């Protein structure tokens, strides 16, 4: 007894019996927790549970279908496309965003316009995702007259491509027939010693080559076929099919000599006055034509928003938005790397690339993983930018899980059961990434 007494001394006065302050303390605790608990329950817990239950019921919620919605989910083409597309998004986009962010962060580290450049790259983050999607939708239009991307590609093609001297033109008289695509052929058969007049109209004045000179009517010579390609038009009229003063030759036009079967036997190009000549032509009947090479095939634009390229197009828009985020986070990580560790690596004999590979990147690993995990979660949930970039006709091909959920639930189909099943799938897919994040936070705290 004596021992027991020594081990458990009597509680000091005031702590004997029930603690009068205990309920008060519990009440305070509850009061502080209540707002959070209420909000979480109403906005998170209840909807989650309700969605899971709803996914087991049919379209209007009255019929129990068990896992039927999930079966539909994995057997419907557009939904399988959505899952497959989401997998591609997760595989491609986080890596690209991190890589591009890293390139920007490293390259802008030592430039004097660093702040301006980084602001510009970060700017898309300030735009709503939907608006960014609309911008890209307009830029990705197929018609180069409307879509900036195709206009830019067209401009580059014009600089480097071997396009012809003219983009369009029409025969000035019945003597010629054909089209820009096939070339224009003189109806009449031509023999050596003859001349050929190949008049064109409807040529925009700006397209007439700068070195063009007054057209000269050909002077036939024996054994040769000579001719002229000219702009058969002068202000105030003029007579079609006749070379008149003030009418310019078209230099650089391709002229073909075709035999009776229509095979091209010789080609030549016109001079500054539009004149051309085929020498030493064997006797016989020929046709003379302005080759289609004279006319540049106009660039018709790449179909960015078509079914084949729609997913890459949306990804480009998405990366454009998020690269700035990655850059800012990685730049912060870079500036936290002690300078002298990098200097130590340099004096240790490492090349700049080795310093980057063996020191900078490993030291950036925690930051890179933040970017990566954040982007995986974001990409799994990607929705609005797909909706705004992809036109209705391509949405089946651009489909992602979140978009599929919305389209199934709200956009005409109104199948809330299947929509809920898609939502649950998305929820399940996000869990591993979240768990990864939570584990990292815990590790950082410890």
């Amino acid at each position, binding site marked *: 007894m004596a021992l027991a007494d020594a081990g458990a001394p009597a509680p000091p006065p005031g702590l004997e019996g029930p603690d009068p302050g205990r309920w008060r303390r519990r009440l305070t605790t509850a009061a502080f927790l209540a707002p959070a608990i209420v909000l979480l329950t109403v906005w998170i817990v209840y909807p989650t549970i309700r969605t899971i239950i709803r996914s087991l019921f049919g379209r209007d919620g009255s019929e129990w279908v068990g896992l039927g919605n999930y079966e539909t989910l994995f057997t419907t083409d557009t939904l399988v496309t959505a899952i497959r597309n989401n997998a591609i998004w997760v595989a491609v986009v986080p890596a690209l965003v991190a890589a591009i962010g890293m390139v920007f962060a490293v390259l802008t580290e030592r430039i004097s316009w660093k702040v301006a450049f980084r602001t510009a790259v970060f700017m898309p983050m300030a735009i709503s995702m939907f608006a960014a999607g609309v911008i890209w939708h307009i830029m990705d239009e197929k018609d180069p007259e409307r879509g900036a991307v195709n206009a830019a590609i067209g401009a580059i093609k014009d600089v480097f491509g071997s396009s012809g001297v003219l983009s369009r033109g029409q025969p000035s008289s019945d003597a010629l027939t054909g089209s820009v695509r096939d070339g224009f052929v003189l109806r009449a058969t031509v023999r050596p010693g003859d001349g050929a007049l190949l008049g064109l109209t409807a040529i925009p004045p700006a397209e007439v080559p700068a070195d063009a000179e007054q057209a000269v009517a050909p002077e036939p010579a024996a054994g040769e076929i000579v001719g002229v390609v000219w702009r058969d038009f002068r202000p105030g009229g003029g007579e079609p099919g006749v070379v008149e003063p003030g009418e310019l030759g078209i230099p650089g036009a391709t002229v073909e000599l075709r035999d009776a079967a229509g095979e091209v036997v010789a080609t030549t190009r016109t001079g500054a006055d539009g004149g051309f000549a085929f020498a030493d032509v064997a006797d016989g009947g020929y046709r003379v034509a302005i080759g289609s090479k004279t006319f540049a095939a106009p660039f018709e634009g790449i179909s960015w928003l078509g079914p084949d390229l729609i997913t890459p197009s949306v990804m480009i828009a998405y990366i454009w938005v998020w690269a700035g985020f990655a850059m800012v986070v990685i730049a912060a990580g870079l500036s936290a790397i002690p300078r*002298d*560790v990098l200097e*130590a*690596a340099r*004096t*240790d004999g490492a090349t700049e690339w080795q310093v980057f590979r*063996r020191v900078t990147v490993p030291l950036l*690993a925690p930051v890179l993983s933040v970017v990566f995990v954040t982007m995986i979660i974001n990409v799994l949930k990607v929705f609005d930018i797909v909706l705004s970039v992809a036109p209705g006709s391509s949405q089946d091909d651009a489909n992602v899980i979140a978009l599929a959920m919305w389209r199934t639930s709200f956009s005409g189909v109104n199948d809330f059961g299947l929509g809920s099943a898609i939502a649950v799938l998305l929820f399940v897919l996000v869990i591993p990434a979240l768990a990864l994040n939570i584990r990292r936070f815990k590790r950082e705290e410890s």
Partner: protein
Amino acid sequence: MAEVEFDRVSKVYEDGTRAVNDFRVEIADGEFLVLVGPSGCGKTTALRMVAGLEEITEGVVRIGDRIVNHVPSRDRDIAMVFQSYALYPHLSVRENIAFGLKVKRLPKDEIARRVERAARILDLEPFLDRKPRALSGGQRQRVAMGRAIVREPACFLMDEPLSNLDAKLRVQMRAEIARLQQELGVTTLYVTHDQVEAMTMGDRVAVMRKGELQQVAAPQELYDHPVNLFVAGFIGSPAMNLLEGRLERAGDGLAVRAGGQTLSLPAELTAARPALARYVDRTVIVGIRPEDLEDAAVAGDAPEGRRLGGVAQLREALGSELMVYLTVDAPAAVTAETDELAEDRGVQQLGADEPGTTVVGRFSPRSRVREGDRVEVVVDTSALHFFDPDTGLGIYDATNGGGPT
């Protein structure tokens, strides 16, 4: 192994600051040269120019026969030890040490052999698989050394490698680095602001001030024949006492009158410093090392011309010796150099607002001096130093050229 040479090297920053100006030093093959000076004197900048981490604005740096001005760091065949150690935090000790060998793509067994050897020399064998953050300061310092020695470079560059260690460890590592350098025989350039490190470690010591080289000499030479006031005040702890006095003729010889007191100069001193003759009846700055002062009660009788009178302000008993700070009735020497030295030590010049000057004496512990006592001090007048108050230069021979460099 190679010599390192600074040939009229300057470093000018964009804003026009000259961090290093017309710097000229040759470091012999295998020599241990310590670059010392107060903070901001350009010593680290000079070191970083050899390392290739700082561009050279003017002049030429040679390592061996090679001008390295435009050679990138990695090709200079140097190894640097940083003040912060700059270990790679993501690599183990073994990988840290091996890093420089791996990037040079040495064969694996050669790397392993060299790392083992370095670990053995530095007692790092038990820690090879730890990460740097699991090491103590002294161990990290040794890893940094290990990383340098495995490279077997032409030259070691050390940037205040001991300044992050506690006092005891610093003394130990000081000896260790000096021993290591001697064993390996690698040319070493060592930067420090600690004059004790400079004195104990270097074959020669180069003192810098405001980007300018003041003097390069063996430690003892630097101590005995400082070329100017700055070097005299910087080298030695406690610092040399500096008084302002007037040189006068006294019979056959010379005497210096400082305030109300007179010290006569022995004949051998005047003979060793013939230039003193030109300063007769002019103001000079007199330097007295603390160890050249002794309590008259201990030292015994001394003639009038070797005594100073003062009042003890503070005594610090260190066991083997006794530091006594006393106020002497003599004006203190105040020049730009002494101001700068005081600033570097983080103290205001004492005695600026009271008559007399505080001087420090390193007395025998047998002295019974107490604070507030009036003390008679015997001065070893043969060890006095003299400086020109205008130029700050030491007064030595006729050419006034200062000590040998």
